[in-house]
């Protein structure tokens, strides 16, 4: 499978994502944000970083980059798109995912390991995560507090679009295990069609034991397994 990793000015986890995919024995390559085509992509990763210096709002300027039109088309055709950290913010700004990510509740940048509970295994991003496994994955963000209005939250719940929630080491969804004040402890979610997902934690930074955790692999492995089952829609 071939993963395309987007690269915006000030993306800084693009190479981490490329590496994480290659470690799993698949191919990946970078596509510059000014490109209008993704090439032969089976899946797209929108990586973390500080695209456009986080000016105006995180992801607000990147979403208008030419490549995002191709990503929209790819998603419309059913292609798998995963946004990590700034990538999650970009996908929300682009309207590919519901809600928004705002300043952390305590106004501080959080760079730490967190535990994630998988809330739905019924998605191409979570299907290979062991059922009782809490994922230990790092976060590194200042604006990761998930917000959506009541109606949107109700929709997320009834459609099982919440994929990951911040929890403690026992898997309890507590206030203290919520690093940024996200509503419902939401760390990541997917769209209604379940082919676009985003999360604030960095699975790319937890893809090998030498990094302190390899739990992030389960997310990439889920995507690969889903793609092998059902080949991706090829986009222009």
């Amino acid at each position: 499978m071939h993963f395309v990793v987007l690269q915006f000015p000030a993306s800084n986890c693009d190479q981490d994502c490329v590496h994480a995919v290659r470690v799993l024995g698949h191919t990946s390559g970078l596509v510059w944000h000014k490109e209008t085509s993704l090439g032969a992509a089976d899946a797209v990763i929108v990586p973390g970083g500080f695209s456009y210096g986080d000016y105006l709002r995180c992801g607000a300027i990147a979403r208008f980059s030419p490549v995002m039109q191709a990503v929209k088309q790819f998603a419309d055709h059913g292609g798998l798109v995963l946004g990590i950290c700034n990538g999650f913010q970009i996908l929300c700004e682009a309207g590919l995912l519901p809600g928004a990510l705002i300043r952390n509740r305590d106004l501080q940048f959080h760079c730490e390991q967190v535990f994630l509970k998988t809330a739905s295994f019924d998605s191409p991003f979570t299907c290979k995560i062991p059922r009782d496994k809490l994922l230990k994955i790092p976060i590194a963000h200042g604006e990761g507090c998930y917000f959506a209005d009541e109606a949107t939250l109700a929709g997320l719940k009834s459609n099982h679009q919440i994929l990951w929630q911040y929890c403690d080491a026992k898997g309890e969804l507590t206030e203290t295990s919520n690093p940024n004040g996200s509503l419902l402890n939401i760390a990541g979610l997917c769209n209604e069609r379940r082919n676009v997902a985003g999360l604030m934690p960095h699975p790319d930074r937890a893809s090998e034991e030498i990094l302190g955790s390899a739990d992030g692999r389960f997310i990439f492995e889920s995507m690969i397994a889903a793609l092998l089952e059902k080949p991706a829609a090829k986009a222009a």
Partner: protein
Amino acid sequence: MKAKIIITPKKAVLDPQGKTVQSALAHMGYTGVTGVHVGKYLEIDLAPGTDKAAAHAALNEAAHKFLSNPVIEDYRLEIE
């Protein structure tokens, strides 16, 4: 000719900056403050002779789709 856009967090959205500023004001002895909302102010210079109504319509669209995020923010646009 200038356009001014004031962007504020929606009332339902957690505004930790506003809360922090509010409590700092209280600590400094400024009493009677019941709320602070920290937003953004954009000043946009327009070419002389720009049609005011057309500029208003264009900037209204820009404010809605780009300069503010309607999920979390409200905005007010003035042209003078």
